[in-house]
């Protein structure tokens, strides 16, 4: 059985800049996949290719096993929120949703259901341009849910939401996934990722650098904090054995078990000053995977 969402060997360049390089991953049914990475890493480009807004130079994106353009009724399969500001500011909230409902063949009562669901019923007559960013995000979510889709693709949906709104969003996504829906959500909100996501896909410089289950990450042993005498040289030594060390405090956070770190130190003939096991921290973990992203940008 094919996964509801899949990117297969997707590549995209803008001029000389490589936005995506051989990107492949999929999102199984009934799961929430967090799509993380630094700004400019290629998250939005990947989501735009998935939703048919941008054409891939090579490879393809699939929804329910087919390219979105090939689906006879795409709104039934995929709902998306790519940019909460991409609505006509002069159109009312209700009319914005009614236009889409009309386009995809949904009755207008579905509009009222979705407005109720996202808590925008009271501002249904207000023009979109008069909404706060948080309200526009809610409108975007209502728009994504209109066609009863089996999968959702959301690009930073928590932008502009207050803490209460973020909890509401968590519940919405969890409920959607419990019903068998599939969610791919790009976000920088790591706390929300830890609360809701089943899987994590990490992108850096246009390449997928990790794809893992959050549970595996939580139970994964071998996160180690280490302080060594010659830290830069030890960092290089660790990279040579396939680790992704991340500088933190006076030492390094290493994605290896303490004994493996010890062996690496022995082989590199570097004295260790401190060595201890560390709990998984998502921010440090992501940073260790994408540490080179900003190199050269500040020069």
């Amino acid at each position, binding site marked *: 059985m094919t996964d509801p969402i899949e990117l297969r060997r997707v590549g995209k360049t803008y001029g000389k800049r490589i936005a995506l390089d051989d990107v492949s991953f999929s999102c199984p049914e009934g799961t929430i996949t967090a799509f993380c990475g630094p700004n400019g890493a290629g998250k939005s480009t990947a989501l735009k290719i998935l939703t048919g807004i941008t054409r891939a130079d090579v490879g393809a994106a699939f929804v329910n096993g087919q390219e979105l353009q090939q689906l006879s009724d795409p709104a039934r399969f995929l709902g998306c929120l790519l940019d909460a500001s991409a609505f*006509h500011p002069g159109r009312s909230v209700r009319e914005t949703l009614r236009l889409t409902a009309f386009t995809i063949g949904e009755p207008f009562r579905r509009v009222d259901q979705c407005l109720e669901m996202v808590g925008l019923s009271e501002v249904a007559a207000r023009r979109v341009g008069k909404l706060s960013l948080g309200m526009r995000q809610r409108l975007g979510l209502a728009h994504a849910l209109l066609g009863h889709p089996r999968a959702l693709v959301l690009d930073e949906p928590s932008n502009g939401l207050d803490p209460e709104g973020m909890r509401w969003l968590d519940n919405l996504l969890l409920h959607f996934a419990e019903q068998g829906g599939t969610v791919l959500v790009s976000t920088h909100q790591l706390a929300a990722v830890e609360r809701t996501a089943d899987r994590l896909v990490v992108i850096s410089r246009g390449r997928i650098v990790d794809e893992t289950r959050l549970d595996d990450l939580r139970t994964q042993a071998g996160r180690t904090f280490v302080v060594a005498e010659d830290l830069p040289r030890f960092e290089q030594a660790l990279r040579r054995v396939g680790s992704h060390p991340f500088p933190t405090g006076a030492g390094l956070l290493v994605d290896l078990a303490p004994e493996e770190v010890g062996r690496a130190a022995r082989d590199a003939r570097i004295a260790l000053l401190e060595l201890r096991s560390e709990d998984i921290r998502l921010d440090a973990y992501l940073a260790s995977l994408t540490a080179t992203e900003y190199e050269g940008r500040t020069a």
Partner: protein
Amino acid sequence: MIRLVLVEMRRALDTRGPRWAFAVAAVSGVVLSFLIGWETKTFVAFVAGLSVALPLLMGLLAVMAFTAEWTTRAALTTFSITPRRQRILGARYVAVLILGVSTLVVIHLLAAVVFAVTRPTSAASVFDIAVLRQFWEMLATTIAATLTATAVAGLVLRTAPALVIAVFGPLFLTIGLAFTPALLNWLNPYAFASWLAAPGLDWTIASETRVGVGPAMTSFVVWTAIPLALGWFRQLRAEPR
């Protein structure tokens, strides 16, 4: 496809700007008739002055209706729910054409009412057969102007430059080529509209008022077909930002 055309017609009219634009176009058409045809006794003469303003009015409406999606970034949302863009684009061209023609009909109906009220003794001339002939000429102008404006708007995707090129471009070109009549005859932006109003089979210019197939097709290709094809291709590939 019919549903998409209805969606696009609704989209073109469901915000204040376009609604005002269509209303102003309709009212200004009537006011223009009233001013130009102040002393006229027949309805045909009363609305004849409209033909001068029609390319401007219809071009303006078509450009505004066509570029709103791109200038407000709403195209991103529209294309995400209908990934097969050619369906949306086709529906949009048809919708804008229908709206242009509807505006012309509304202008005529309003003008007929104004004429009948202000000249009750000549009201019967509203039903003169000559009115139909003149309406057809204006319809041809409306269709040609709307097609050109939507083609240019689809190519440029920005309201201001599209207006300058589609609405004022033909005017400036006509003035600019005034001293080279032979060239003007073949590149005249209004040649297709003139031919459509009174179709004939002569290849070149037949008379002062009749245009041949050659200049008409040249005008259509240069001012409508080429921008339409390029605009279509551009919109299929463009990435809304």
